[in-house]
């Protein structure tokens, strides 16, 4: 007893000396995403944000002791390479991984983590998913070891169609998506949800085009034009998104686009002003939401990474949610054991910057409010010389993204419970 007390005192002393490091413990988090090759830009932006949040957590000692350290591992967006990386991560004794780019990679990792944890129960791995949106991961493929902090594609469609249902002027919808699992899921969900909410809306077009193969979207735009659709729904991302919207602009097509990722990392620059007033996106955050409790944090991040050469803008609120919730789980369990953390995360309610979010215990899907917003010119504030190159007149669009001069203006906030989907998950808990 006495001995214990002495140790505790000594520890307090040490912690006074090295402010914030009560334990010599560090929880390493392996960030498994592309850091080389074509998608390295996106992967690198994510890593910087994770590390920025980790610094914040360490500075404020939100874990009540252990330091968080995020280490980047390059998976070259290849599912195979991700498995190699996972082996390396396990060899290094890292027990928490996080990943987001590509549902193919996420699917492989969930599978591999399940198999590993089954075969090595004392060395189990925890997988925090911040962006892979395949609904299967919280339904048929759900796993105790997997937590998703992004809304899945069905939830986003639920929110989107909810917003559209209220707009009586919409009579017809055109769907254009990439021909692979995500694009097909968007098409299916759009048809299903619209039929449920607004059976009078007609689907006047349903295009699936091969992913990354279309150079010229003009023919598709001509077809959209010919269909006289009131809105277009698209799950396209990357070049397929930018090229589509550019072609729409060229043809003078004024139909609004309801999208998932047209405003994603690196897309605004490529899209240019073609999307202004036309492109809507659904996200958990953008820089011009009101009230914006993340403003200070985002500004700090942008001050560090904005401008050349990175041109980064704070993008992932869900990364903050993920890391803060992890930190709280560590603090409350006083442990960095993945299993204990997982049990704590289940059902955790957390006050995020956009309101309360909940990690639903039945399927490990975070339920969070979402925003529908439209691309707009950023506001030119006569008092602020930094905004001199902006062209907008709406003071609500205070910030642009990635130095493009373009930002987002909120159309609606959709509460978390609206987006929640029933789950078929039958979770096996250890």
């Amino acid at each position, binding site marked *: 007893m006495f001995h214990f007390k002495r140790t505790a005192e000594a520890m307090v002393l040490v912690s006074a000396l090295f402010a914030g490091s009560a334990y010599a413990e560090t929880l390493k988090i392996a960030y498994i995403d592309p850091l080389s090759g074509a998608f390295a830009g996106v992967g*690198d932006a994510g890593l910087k944000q994770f590390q920025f949040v980790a610094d914040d957590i360490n500075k404020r000692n939100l874990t009540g002791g252990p330091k968080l350290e995020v280490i980047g591992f390059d998976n070259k967006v290849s*599912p195979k390479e991700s498995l190699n990386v996972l*082996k*390396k991560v396990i*060899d290094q004794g890292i027990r928490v991984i996080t990943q987001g780019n590509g549902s*193919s990679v996420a699917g*492989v990792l969930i599978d591999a983590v399940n198999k590993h944890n089954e075969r090595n129960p004392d060395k189990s791995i925890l997988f925090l998913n911040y962006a892979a949106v*395949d609904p299967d991961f919280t339904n048929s493929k759900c796993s105790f070891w997997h937590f998703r902090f992004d809304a899945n594609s069905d939830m986003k469609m639920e929110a989107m169609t909810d917003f559209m249902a209220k707009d009586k002027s919409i009579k017809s919808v055109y769907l254009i998506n990439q021909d692979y699992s995500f694009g097909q899921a968007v098409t299916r969900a759009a048809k299903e949800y619209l039929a449920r909410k607004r059976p009078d809306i007609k689907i006047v077009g349903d295009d699936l085009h091969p992913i990354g193969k279309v150079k010229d979207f003009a023919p598709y735009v001509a077809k959209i034009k010919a269909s006289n659709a009131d809105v277009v729904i698209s799950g396209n991302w990357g070049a397929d998104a930018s090229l589509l919207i550019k072609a729409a602009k060229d043809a003078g097509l004024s139909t609004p686009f309801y999208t998932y990722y047209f405003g994603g990392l690196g897309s605004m620059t490529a899209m240019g002003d073609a999307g202004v007033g036309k492109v809507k996106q659904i996200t958990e955050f953008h820089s011009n939401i009101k009230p914006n409790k993340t403003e200070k944090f985002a500004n700090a991040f942008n001050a560090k990474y904005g401008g050349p050469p990175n041109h980064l803008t704070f993008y992932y609120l869900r990364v903050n949610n993920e890391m803060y919730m992890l930190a709280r789980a560590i603090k409350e369990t006083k442990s960095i054991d993945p299993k204990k953390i997982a049990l704590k995360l289940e059902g955790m309610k957390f006050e995020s910057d956009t309101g309360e979010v909940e990690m639903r215990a039945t399927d490990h899907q975070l339920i969070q409010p979402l925003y529908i917003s439209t691309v707009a010119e950023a506001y030119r504030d006569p008092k602020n010389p930094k905004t001199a190159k902006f062209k907008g007149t709406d003071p609500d669009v205070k910030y642009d993204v990635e130095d493009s001069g373009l930002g987002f203006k909120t159309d609606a906030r959709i509460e978390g419970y609206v987006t929640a989907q029933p789950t078929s998950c039958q979770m096996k808990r250890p």
Partner: protein
Amino acid sequence: MSKLRYRPINLGRWLVWGITALVMIVLPLIFTSGFTLTIMSQIGVGIIFALSYNMLLGQGGMLSFGHAVYSGLGAYFTVHALNLISKGTFYFPVTLAPIIGGVAGAFFGVIFGYVTTKKSGTTFAMISLGIGEMVFACSLMFSDFFGGEAGIATNRVMGSNVLGITYGPAIQVYYLIIGWALVCMAAMYAWTQTPLGRMANAVRDNPERAEFVGYDTHMVRFLTLVLSGFFAGIAGGLSSINYEIVTAENLGALASGSVLIATFVGGAGYFFGPIIGIIVFFVMVTAVGGITQAWLFYLGLLFLIMVLYAPGGFASLILMHVPVIKARLMRRLWLPYAAAAITGVVLLAGLVSVVEMTYHYSAEADTNPGMALFGLAFNVTSYTPWAVAAGLLVGGFIVSRFAWKAVGKAWGEIILGLQERRA
């Protein structure tokens, strides 16, 4: 007479094969970590894949940019078969499951090969690229069979347990892979010693003459491609057992490009060349790729240098020394080689510094100007490190040229000497 003459070579051949097998068996006992075992398993699969590729490139003179089509489709068929087996639809031992991939690979070799092998050379290369693109695009469209973006997963551990072999532990899979690798290596080597194998060489060297000795060059190329597809399919089948998942990347241009690079760098003109190539390739990807994000740049550079200056690959670089060693002339080479090595290190250091600093500069010059290289920490925004790096690069290049000239001169003398001895 002739039989006698061949005997010592045969003995050597047995020795080489025996040592190869022994090394493969013993390696995991020395390197026990999970990660190295994974890499070694992949090298095993890669050896089969690269050797099958070399049936086209090296033996048949067909440069393919779409060989992953056959291994990838083989992998998909194997993974579906494994899922059916575990459901109990039919019985087939997991140990032999790669055969299913092989048959699938050969089947698609028949389908695509008939059209593509009408020509050789650049036409074949372009068409193979087109077929590869087409199959890859289709793989994303037909998600029932290809599993879309998520791919098709399986579980290699099944009910039956023969002699304690479940294929649960990675080490068992490793031994499965090297078992298959040895069998396939032997089979592909044997193929080079058959009429078809020999005629593939003939068609590669002089297709016109081959036509005038009774061979349909289209048929020779076609059959070569089908057999090559068979072995590629086996490699695909093994990789599906190894990873327990198959995704569209198995069919993609990157996979096809990688096997081309590995085979060529190793040496397409020699049977064992691709084996060296695959090992070099994995070292580049895992070791270099683990240190720097510029690994693709270095890989591309290595490939270009080999194309320009050593088109026979590492295998030819090694083999050209055999007669020199036999003639006991190596001592003439040591000095120039040492010079080339030292100057080469300088050149390499300069090159690596410039590349790494540029990468660092373009990525994070303003947020994190400090970086470390070769144990030295410095600031990329200051001039000194750039001057030093450029100096190393230019200086290294100049002195290397002298060293290479010395090497060239020494080789010239040796070749002359060897010719004199022969005469």
